[in-house]
């Protein structure tokens, strides 16, 4: 113990001596700071004093022009226009009311609205954020405001960039809209490493503007202006301070080259506007390129570029037809009879039937203790699979559904891209649903009921799909099972025009691959294709009114109920129901039949019948033929 104490006291004495370390640290660190102070306050003192006294720095963030968006032929779909905007900087305003009184007659905005805007901005963003009071000033307004600037502090005219979509509401859902980054989005973007984004920056909020924002956005620049002590811009030579501050020019965003075709998009909109229905159209080609993507009703993205008013915003949000939704990719719905080709393929491939098997299809089918009805009173007699598709026989497919079973149907339907995200380059895509016995056990906690196979077979029950998925799957059926990933962007180029990224066609699944469990033979695809041909061309075809001269299309109609799961209620008294409970009309068709180029899917919401979708598809194909096969068009004229 004693020894320990002595030992420790030796240690302590040694430690006391080590106080020298602390002296050294103190001396070195304080010298560093002192030297720095000498440099700043004595050597550079005069320069810096001059800066602080007369030339205060005000920095202005210069928004970059976003990349231009083109259609597949290089026509401009979204561009940037100059916008002279009146902004006020609250930090320099002495008397808000007085300023508002003087501004009001010049820009034709009530004084109380101006003060209200300023106060709102101070509340939300503090004193330092300039407030945009009016966009698109005219030259006379600019001149008058310039005069007012002499008497009032804090007024500025800024040259801003206006993001314009010249075709207004035509491409709203595909291109989307832009807006100022919100305080909720900002931290998320910075987490993702987007460190350049700051409050006040413009980002894409929906559609391609959002999905490809990191390409299209560009990088803001910084411009430093000298201001006097009262915040007014001081004239003089451009500012160079200690060699540290140079203006940083903004970096232009990259250009997006879409797969869209302006003419076809216009045709889609025109076809929809001829009807009274809401809904959507999507057209997709052999490589998964989307040529038209239209959702009706639509909205004008330019309203968002201007800074949308709260009235306009709430009218969009509260509109029961949901104009902001992209119904082609966000709404998954019962595919109804458009699902029957998938059941037919399953039945053929599992050899439950062959091309020529005759199956009796009466008007009703009894299973368990329930009766399931066809949509006709008479039934179709004994029919083959192609006839069953042509006439959309329910009973024929009830029987196939029972024979094949839900899990096998699901295997083929999923391979064709249903029940999962297609991977389209847009956000908020709905995955849809193809049920299996395992799915039901996991999600509903119940075993699969055999009777449910009947509902599945006619595309009701748990089955859900977007028209994007259906269009893509029909395109695959037309190509004997080649499923491509749908996409809207072909390539991205930089402002100089060099390609910086290409997005080539991507084959997702090939059902023609014999080694795969989902293999379907080309012969069986042919059988179903014949059925689809008869839908549009046969004498009993449910879409025979869609025929256009010299261009053969093939497809399938579907009338799908919105509520309830029982198959026999589908065709009852649709028109007397409340609008939101009426059936959806669907028609999906590819063409030309011999060498398929394009598939079009149309949804008319709550139209009660697929026959409402058929004319839209026909109109669209007429425009398609006029543009891509004008030779066939002239033939018709000759014949007349």
């Amino acid at each position, binding site marked *: 113990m004693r020894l320990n104490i002595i*030992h*420790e006291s*030796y*240690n*302590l004495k*040694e*430690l*006391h001596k*080590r*106080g020298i*370390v*602390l*002296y050294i*640290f*103190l001396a070195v*660190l*304080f010298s*560093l*700071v*002192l030297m*720095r*102070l*000498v440099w*700043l*306050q*004595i050597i*550079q*003192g*005069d*320069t*810096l*004093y001059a*800066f*602080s*006294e007369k030339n*205060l*720095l005000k*920095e202005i*963030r210069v928004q970059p022009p976003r990349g231009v968006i083109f259609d597949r032929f290089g026509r401009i779909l979204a561009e940037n226009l100059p916008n002279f905007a009146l902004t006020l900087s609250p*930090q320099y305003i002495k008397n808000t009311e007085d300023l508002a009184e003087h501004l009001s007659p010049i820009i034709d905005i009530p004084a109380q609205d101006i003060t209200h805007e300023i106060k709102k901005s101070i509340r939300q963003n503090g*004193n*330092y954020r300039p407030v945009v009071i009016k966009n698109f000033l005219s030259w006379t307004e600019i001149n008058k405001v310039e005069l007012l600037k002499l008497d009032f502090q804090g007024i500025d005219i800024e040259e801003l960039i206006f993001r314009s979509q010249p075709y207004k509401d035509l491409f709203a859902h595909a291109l989307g809209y832009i807006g100022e980054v919100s305080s909720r989005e900002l*931290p998320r973007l*910075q*987490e993702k*490493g987007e*460190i*350049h984004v*700051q409050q006040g920056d413009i980002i894409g909020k929906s559609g391609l503007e959002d999905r490809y924002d990191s390409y299209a956005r560009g990088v803001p620049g*910084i411009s*430093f202006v000298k201001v006097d*002590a009262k915040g007014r811009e001081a004239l003089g030579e451009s500012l160079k*301070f200690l060699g*540290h*501050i*140079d203006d*940083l020019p903004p970096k232009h965003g990259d250009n997006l080259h879409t797969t869209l075709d302006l003419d076809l998009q216009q045709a889609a909109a025109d076809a929809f506007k001829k009807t009274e229905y809401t809904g959507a159209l999507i057209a997709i080609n052999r490589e998964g390129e989307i040529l038209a993507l239209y959702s009706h009703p639509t909205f004008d993205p330019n309203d968002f570029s201007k800074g949308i008013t709260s009235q306009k915003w709430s009218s969009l949000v509260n509109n029961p037809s949901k104009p902001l939704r992209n119904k082609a990719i966000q709404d998954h719905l019962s595919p109804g009879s458009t699902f029957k080709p998938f059941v037919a393929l399953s039945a053929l491939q599992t050899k439950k039937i062959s091309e020529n098997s005759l199956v009796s299809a009466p008007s009703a089918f009894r299973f368990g203790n329930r009766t399931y009805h066809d949509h006709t009173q008479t039934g179709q007699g004994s029919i083959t699979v192609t006839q069953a598709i042509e006439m959309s026989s329910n009973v024929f497919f009830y029987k196939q559904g029972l024979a094949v079973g839900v899990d096998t149907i699901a295997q083929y339907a999923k391979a064709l891209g249903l029940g999962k995200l297609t991977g389209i380059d847009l956000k908020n895509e709905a995955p849809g649903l193809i049920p299996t016995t395992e799915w039901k056990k996991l999600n509903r906690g119940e075993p699969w009921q055999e009777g449910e196979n009947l509902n599945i077979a006619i595309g009701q029950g748990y089955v859900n799909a977007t028209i994007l998925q259906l269009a893509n799957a029909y395109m695959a059926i037309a190509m004997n099972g080649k499923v491509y990933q749908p996409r809207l962007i072909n390539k991205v180029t930089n402002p100089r025009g060099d390609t910086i990224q290409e997005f080539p066609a991507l084959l997702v699944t090939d059902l023609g691959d014999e080694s795969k469990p989902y293999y379907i033979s080309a012969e069986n695809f042919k059988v179903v294709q014949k059925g689809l041909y008869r839908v549009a061309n046969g004498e009993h075809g449910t879409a025979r009114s869609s025929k256009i001269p010299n261009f053969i299309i093939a497809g399938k109609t579907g009338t799908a109920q919105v509520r309830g799961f029982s198959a026999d209620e589908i065709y009852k008294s649709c028109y007397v129901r409340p609008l939101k409970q009426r059936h959806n009309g669907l028609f999906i068709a590819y063409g030309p039949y011999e060498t398929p180029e394009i598939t079009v899917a149309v949804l008319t919401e709550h139209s009660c019948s697929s026959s409402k979708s058929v004319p839209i598809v026909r109109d669209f194909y007429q425009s398609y033929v006029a543009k891509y096969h004008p030779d066939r068009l002239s033939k018709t004229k000759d014949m007349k």
Partner: protein
Amino acid sequence: MIHSDIMVSDPSKSLFRRINIYLIGSLIALNLIGLVNLLSATTNIARHLRGVFNDQMIWISLGWLLIFFITAIGYRVFIRLAYVIYALNILALIAVMVIGKSSYGAQRWIDLGFFNYQPSETMKLAMILVMARYLSRFDPRIGMDFKDLLIPGLLIGLPFALTAKQPDLGTALLILMVTGLMLLTMKIRFRVLLSALCLALIAGPVVWKVGLKPYQKNRVLTFLYPNRDPRGAGYNSIQAKIAVGSGQIFGKGFRNGSQSQLEFLPEKQTDFIFCVLSEEYGFLGCIATLGIYAILLLSIIQTMIMARDMEAALMCVGIFALILWHVFINTGMVTGLLPIVGVPLPLISYGGTSTLTIMAGLGWVSSIYFRKDMFG
């Protein structure tokens, strides 16, 4: 076994002689400088911040009560409870992480109603305590070897990881730097130092790649290349430099700093308070203030040299390091020597936790000086 009472009753060791007047004097001076500066920094600040001056008065008063209290009860209590205090503080850090999860982003405090308790601040003190207790067993003549550093490494690593995770990298680094100086004072074998240096060189790029959040990288990059992001930290740094430099030799006078008064400075009552001081009182004012800091720090070294046991001496080293690093990092950041880090200027910046932490630490020093001649 003989003397304790005799020493106390020695008339030459009167109560007054047992108080470190350099410490107390410089502390009072810094308090006054801080308050005057705060008056200047808050002239045209938004209404809800007007209470800043009154708040700071309250914190300083509480700080003085703490100093008297700690001097009265003595520092040995803290040493005895070192591991308990350390463990409780670690728990509080974990609690903050759990509570912080429910709110958005980083949360560094626990709301105690009247006071936002920031465990990462008291962690600095707990760290000093626990290190003082553990290191006291070593012989400063030999120097610490790898195996000796295992436990200190764990003791430092845990709070470092927890604060870095918050993320409060400033505090995490301060914990590292304060304990580092304590270890250095205890002497570290040369080969250990060399390996640590190599490790830092290797680990640096790795930490940069995976350990830092984008905003943290941004600050460092901005410091290295001010042109890169002149709007954000670059802008603040430039404005701060103008403020400091424009004070020149004599300064612009009380409430006359145009940079400070025209709101070109961010956070000017807290982390950037040194700008206000140097703009309004110039080089002379800065020298005087740094001089007073130097007196304070020297008085701590003086106390350390007189300390009667290892733990006490090491505690002094820790408090010395705490104040020295804070002053250096803060003034270095404001003058553009270092990147922008949220570190307050001790006793001058506004803020309850910072003021109370530093003053509690000085309470220990005062208590150590008070008992320097006793045996116990």
